[in-house]
């Protein structure tokens, strides 16, 4: 396959940045999208040009490190992570446009690499159960209905990649935040801090500059792990019930 790549290049956070066009040849349909970029980078290095920087690590769809906005969609045409996208999803001769995640709360670091530490700070605001190591009850002391445990697991599968934010016209982080709030609100272990957790995580989400939710469902459609927007509905319930009976006075 022969392709033309239109890639966002930006030297650093303060650089204005712009698109550069690169032809790539000898692309095999069995390559993953990131392996195709590896080939481009080898070619660039050999010519003495700075390789394209992009985030990636596990390359098996679970670490959440890879991103890339491909032809106008986060993680490209399939509902999967970029590392699991293969070149057989593209046609010979095609032009592919590759951009970084675009959101105020995810500033560009270089080229296609963005800073997603806002997600870490949202978790730090309350995405945990406050138990120290040791001194906890036996694991089977509190039975949890299978249906509840399964719902919690559905929400807990979020990989924190940020595709939901990138997909959203408001750059909202509601799907990410609600997935953690839901997981812990569903489980008995999360009950004690349920209200403060919802309040604090939502407050942090707003402070980071993420936008509001207007229920377009783009996040759910693009989430590589299929996290459902029913979690957003649950988060809203949690949040409103928390603020009307706030413990944080």
């Amino acid at each position, binding site marked *: 396959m022969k392709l033309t790549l239109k890639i966002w290049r930006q030297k650093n956070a303060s650089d204005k940045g712009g698109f550069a066009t690169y032809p790539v040849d000898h692309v095999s349909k069995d390559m993953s999208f990131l392996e195709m970029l590896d080939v481009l980078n080898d070619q660039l290095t050999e010519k003495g040009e700075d390789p394209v920087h992009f985030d990636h690590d596990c390359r098996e769809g679970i670490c959440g490190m890879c991103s890339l906005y491909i032809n106008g969609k986060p993680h490209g045409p399939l509902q999967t992570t970029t590392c699991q996208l*293969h070149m057989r999803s593209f046609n010979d001769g095609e032009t592919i446009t590759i951009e970084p995640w675009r959101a105020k709360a995810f500033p560009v670091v270089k080229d296609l690499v963005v800073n997603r530490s806002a997600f870490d700070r949202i978790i730090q*605001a309350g995405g945990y159960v406050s138990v120290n190591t040791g001194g906890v009850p036996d694991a089977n002391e509190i039975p949890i209905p299978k249906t509840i445990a399964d719902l919690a697991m559905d929400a807990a599968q979020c990989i924190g990649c940020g595709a939901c934010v990138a997909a959203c016209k408001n750059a909202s982080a509601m799907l990410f935040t609600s997935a953690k709030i839901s997981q812990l609100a569903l489980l008995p272990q999360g009950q004690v801090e349920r209200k403060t957790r919802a309040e604090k995580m939502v407050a942090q989400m707003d402070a980071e500059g993420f936008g509001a939710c207007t229920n377009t469902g783009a996040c759910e459609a693009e989430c590589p792990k299929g996290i459902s927007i029913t979690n957003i509905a649950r988060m809203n319930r949690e949040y409103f019930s928390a603020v009307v009976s706030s413990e944080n006075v």
Partner: protein
Amino acid sequence: MILDSKIPAGPLAEKWTKHKFNSKLVNPANKRKYDVIVVGTGLAGASAAASLAELGYNVKAFCFQDSPRRAHSIAAQGGINAAKNYQNDGDSIFRLFYDTIKGGDYRAREANVYRLAEVSVKIIDQCVAQGVPFAREYGGLLANRSFGGAQVSRTFYARGQTGQQLLLGAYSALSRQVANGKVKLYPRTEMMDVVVIDGQARGIVTRNLITGAVETHAAHAVLLCTGGYGNVFFLSTNAMGSNVTAAWRAHKRGAYFANPCFTQIHPTCIPVSGDHQSKLTLMSESLRNDGRVWVPATQEIAEKLRKGQIKANDIKEEDRDYFLERKYPSFGNLVPRDVASRNAKYVCDEGRGVNETGEAVFLDFRDAIKRDGRNIIEQKYGNLFDMYKQITGEDPYEVPMMIYPAVHYTMGGLWVDYNLMTTVPGLYALGEANFSDHGANRLGASALMQGLADGYFVIPYTIGDYLAQIPPKKVDENHPEFAKAKEEVQNRIQTILSINGTKTVDYFHKKLGKIMWDKCGMARTEVGLKEAKAEIKALKKEFWSNVKVLGTNEELNQTLEKAHRVADFLELGELMVDDALNRNESCGGHFREEYQTPDGEALRDDENFAYVAAWKYMGEGQEEELNKESLVFENVKLTQRSYK
């Protein structure tokens, strides 16, 4: 130096309890005066950082990824073992201990493994309390499954994402301590060296991966929780960033490296599809419960298959060689990982491999689908089949899967004593980064157990014993050793940037990987290992004269990051070869062709090799010095494994 493992005296089952009581404690008011550095935020690192911060120590946690949650522990699929005996099927701490020692082919320390089994039960309690959504039965209690040949069901799991859920649990505990101000987090920061002053670890040198700033950090103790070194093979199931650099720098500063040649090769991975391949993906071991492994009976048929003249489904029953079922009638396709891997290699070496590269065997579900129906197979393996189809473009319901072994885990690592301390006082190694618990072969679902055991339940006790014996005075970062170590790191960076040769970093990494895979991989020979050593030496020389790294230090420079890691892999590779050459026996994942039974199985030599090989760095270009820690078995009887 005589290696003192510091194994406590007394009966096996009482060692840890006694040891905890005999360990010195740090006064609660004094804990805030001690600083601890934790490098790596996977299961071991995140759990250690959180637990130590909860106790009151000041913790600095470092990771090279953009967030602690990305650490490669996240990719573990299967599960975590614990001797809970919830299933009433005869499990016990002793049985888990025994299975782990035997699975490791009697090359692990009894006392460490027993402690691992002992604390395993507390890990599950801890994770459930954190909100980890383990699989449950309809009655609301935790579900278990059997795994990796164990005769009991002791594996806890969260769908196929157990590692992810356990890591996110530890990450949440860590995040809570970040919010409390007890942990300071340094993401996108790579450890470049350890600072040793008067023989004690007193800090580290780091590079900020965004700005390139080289910085020093002082502390009373340094914990390396930096994972394994499988990427020395270039292709492995490890993440792209997984590396040996932190452990290797510690090694060069005096920490002994133990059993480096013990690597685990997992039989069921998706084969390499071409030169562009950057990593390999594991397919769960459970597939071998229903899939049948085969290759064509003759080279001629295999040749036609490779050329695309015939399809797998065209090959008649009598022209198929179900080689595992043929050689191991009683275990069949369910032989242990090392045996399955080796036999796949043998048939491919005979020219009977089934894909374009000649390095793949079939894992066929045709008979299982005929027997049970597609629905049943879909229920059991649907997600795995989908994953396979996504990566290869082929539908395993219609055509057999193709699999080949791949490097998965490294049992070797930094030598540690019972307290998890390396041979450098104040420097600890936890999780896959150390060598202590898996011997020559790790059992399935034991890696997660060890990482969390070390971080949650071992280090919080053992570090206190060390810290209580050193004064709580701030470590002086103005000590000349800090400046010296920093300067060395800066010089190395400048050296790499100034070579300006003609070959990319990946060129060297791929070449090294091929040498390691061909000559220090699934089967090793004296001749091959000696060739490998010479080839690695030559490659290392070429690297330092001809590598091409563009850009500067003062920016995000992913090529520069990788160049450092590959430079260290080149040195480690040579040591792995030395270790494999020294170990004139076959055990677990280490198979020396000269040492096999008449049936072609691994032949251990307990009389001469029941020891840990701990290597001491002797200086640039020098041969490393071998130190031996004898393994004493008082509670298990050493037997030969047989799966016929």
